[in-house]
């Protein structure tokens, strides 16, 4: 890469449509899981994507990995447009992008040893000569804090947290520049969650990785990420530096999310009425105008007119709301 500040990964107005057909002769109905998302991740930066289930965060993660092709817009990695690559070129490029999944029980092949699974990446991309594969696997296992004897064993012999470390070791085997972590700690117990979060933080620091961290746990995201992207119904509603977005959120949905997150230090119960009413509208039939207006405490007539654009609130900080303004809500410290 020539320019140090150029983003490593860049999504431009990405959209993904999953048309569904009702009945044999029914008309296909558009269901946009992701709409109009532009996002960049630079080297050494960790971007957190927050939102509730069905907001399109996992689909976005898969598209940014090149695992799913966007219906609209384009994805580029290190300046190369992913859609222009042949499948062989894409396989070659995938060395540089890796993924860590949510379910530590589903992300490892139950029938093969840990060592064989970590070695796959090494062999596919000829990272080290064949004779050194074993030593490299041992080094990777050590890097994620597991004994080297783990290589001989199969996934079912490990606990959830250990499996997640193995998944991280497998992702690191190809020496990637970019890692997409899709809810990597959601399925883990609190004390184990901290082990994996610490591991990811160390790796980012030591390896200068670009990371996309997808999660619904605001505390973890705030702890780990430099920049936060809040999604609602397939769109970005707020994006900015972590301390700004969570310290003084400027979109009402971000504020509602923060208020809904349980805390060790509960707020005054009188704030209970801040709990968001209703549920996520169906992506097959989104509200006109601002997608959040049906649940928004601030909604007014103007909100139905059109989708509010992401407009700057501060330096590197944008929100998609006609009433966007920083509010000192604060995560309880």
């Amino acid at each position, binding site marked *: 890469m020539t320019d140090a500040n150029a983003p490593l990964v860049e999504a431009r107005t990405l959209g993904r449509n999953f048309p569904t057909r009702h009945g044999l002769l029914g008309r296909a109905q558009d269901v946009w899981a992701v709409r109009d998302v532009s996002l960049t991740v630079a080297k050494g930066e960790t971007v957190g994507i927050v939102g*509730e*289930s069905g907001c399109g965060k996992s689909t976005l993660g898969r598209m940014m*990995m090149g*695992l799913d092709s966007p219906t609209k817009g384009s994805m580029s990695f290190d300046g190369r447009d992913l859609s222009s690559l042949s499948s062989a070129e*894409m*396989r*070659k*490029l*995938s*060395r540089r*992008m890796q*993924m860590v*999944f949510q379910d530590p029980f*589903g*992300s490892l*092949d*139950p*029938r*093969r040893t840990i060592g064989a*699974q970590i070695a*796959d*990446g090494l062999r*596919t991309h000829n990272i080290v000569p064949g004779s050194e594969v074993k030593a490299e696997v041992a080094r990777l296992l050590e890097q994620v804090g597991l004994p080297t004897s783990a290589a001989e064993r*199969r996934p*079912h012999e490990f*606990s*959830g947290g*250990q499996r997640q470390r193995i*998944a991280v070791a*497998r992702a690191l085997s*190809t020496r990637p520049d970019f890692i997409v972590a899709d809810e990597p700690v959601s399925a883990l*117990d*609190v*004390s*184990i*969650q*901290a082990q994996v*979060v*610490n591991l990811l*933080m160390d790796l980012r620091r030591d390896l200068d990785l670009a990371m996309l961290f997808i999660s619904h746990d*605001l*505390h973890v995201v705030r*702890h*780990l990420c430099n920049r936060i992207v809040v999604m609602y119904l397939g769109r970005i509603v707020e994006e900015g530096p972590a301390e700004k977005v969570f310290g003084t959120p400027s979109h009402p949905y971000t504020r509602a*999310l923060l208020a*809904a*997150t*349980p*805390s*060790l*230090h509960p707020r005054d*119960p009188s704030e*209970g009425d801040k*709990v*968001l*009413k209703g*549920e*996520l509208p169906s992506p097959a039939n989104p509200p006109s105008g601002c997608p959040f207006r049906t649940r928004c405490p601030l909604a007014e007539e103007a909100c139905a007119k059109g989708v509010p654009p992401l407009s700057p609130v501060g330096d590197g900080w944008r929100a998609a709301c006609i009433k966007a303004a920083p509010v000192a809500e604060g995560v*309880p*410290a």
Partner: protein
Amino acid sequence: MKASTRKLILPGTIVALIIATVILAPVLPLQDTRGMDIPHRFAGPSAAHWLGQDEFGRDVLSRLIWGGRASLFIAVGSAVLAAIAGTALGLLGGYFRGAVELFTVRAAEIILCLPPLLLALLVVTILGAGTWPLILALTILYTPNYARVVYAATQQVRGLDFVTAQRAMGTHPLKILVRTILPNVLPPLLVQMSLVVASAMVIESGLSFLGLGVVPPTPSWGLMIRAARGAMEVAPLLLVWPSLALAGTILTFNLLCDRLQSALDPRAVTAGGALWLRPRSREAKKPVTPVAAPAEAPLLEISDMSIAVHDMELVRRVSLTVRPGETVALVGESGSGKTLTGLAMTGLLPDTLRVTGGSAVYTTRDGTAVDLAKLDEEGIRKLRGDEISMVFQDAAASLNPVLRIGDQLGEAIQAHHQISGEALQKRILDLLRHVGIPDPERRHRAYPHELSGGQRQRAMIALAVANNPRLLIADEPTTALDPTIQAQILQLFAQLKKDTPGMGMIFVTHDLAVVAEIADRVTVMYAGEVVEEGPVAEVFARPRHPYTAALISSVPESGAERLTAIPGTVPSPRNMPTGCRFAPRCGFATAECESRSPKAEHPAADRVTRCFRWENVT
């Protein structure tokens, strides 16, 4: 050797014997299969002819073995060839989908439209009778079966994360198919294989019987059955031998494939076995004579309760008290025994588990005390749903998918109350309204899948509170929900508490923040034991057990640069540490902690900790 591998020995040996016998047929001291001996036709078993002689006086034993050679070669050969062809088609079709699927699986399915025997007849008629045409016919016949089975299994496996991980790694698709998907679709493939070998043997026999398979005088089991049928009245034994050989071989193959399947699965299968073969889960429980409870008695008082599977103790000496109107949170990591403790209170423990000690005294509505740990099924069923009820984590799995929400509620109410018609309908609508389901007049007719996750959890709660229970046990009721929906459900629980002042609640969760939001008292469990107990605010402000302290500081809320992670993992029930169970992971542990189990200490009047060094913790 693993138990599953050991189980392979028996069927493996028999199959090996059968195969060795038929392969070694040319060198075995067998009599000529064609050597006729008309004077001794239909002779019974003798020293020279162990199984007797057939209608031409030929030796039955040698014909049986040589016949097995033909039958097995055809059956196993065609099963294996069809497996290879069908698996290739199924894998390609299932993985690539689209046009590839059309040309592989769908094309193969055309064969399924033809009657199997007719197809075999067609091939044999064109190519002439004989071993190889028969193998070809059977292979064509069975390929689509394999293709379909493998296709379905591939579709299931291809969406799993570990396959996606291989794709993300840039592995070539063909390599993914062979290395990752194939081993994972083997189990159904093996089942299919055992079925096909059996079925191919039957069809081979049938075709030979019709004179279209193996050409006489070469023996085959089918031909032998055909010949013996004609002489059934004279020598019934002649029919028995080939039939026994056929049935025995088929059964052995089925057994081998079954056992192979479980041996190939690295996840140890802990088969429960048939229900009636298990040890009686509860010693015959006598109905407990109710005793009047003292006034001011707590709603539920669990003392020193243990739960075990066989000899393995999963929960050890747990004590817990719930007073009317109080919410007690039961916190712990997976495997801490928190859910089992909750289940034991409703008599819903899995069959293999049982309460092995201690008591759980519950005070009923009419003021009598019953011990839930000793109550028989009949007694607990009277309480369950009426006095004690439960909300489960996964509402989608806990509601009956084929019954309307309103009907399920009605059923729950009628289980304990004589009510029907208008009154029941009104009660159902009131309940749905009470738990915040919008438009209950319409929604009570909805099926569970028609409701969103949050609505389903509300319906589940309505079901639990349908009879105004006095003790509500909620097992991770908000864990599967999104933050904004979780907040709504927590608010609903708070509302329920306010509306029914006498109701006690046990809230099982792993999320400390949820505890802080909802509970009055908290009980922390670790590895099957209670390690700390007390009022929520006090415990969180000043934990007196190192585990609680570590749990609290591992929540990424503190703003600290590094999270406090507890090293290591929860010990497995098979090898619990001898002393304090937390000692191996504890920063405060001393030699004493590793040798002795700490007693309950009382740092304050209403607090309990199970730690030698509680004074040093915070």
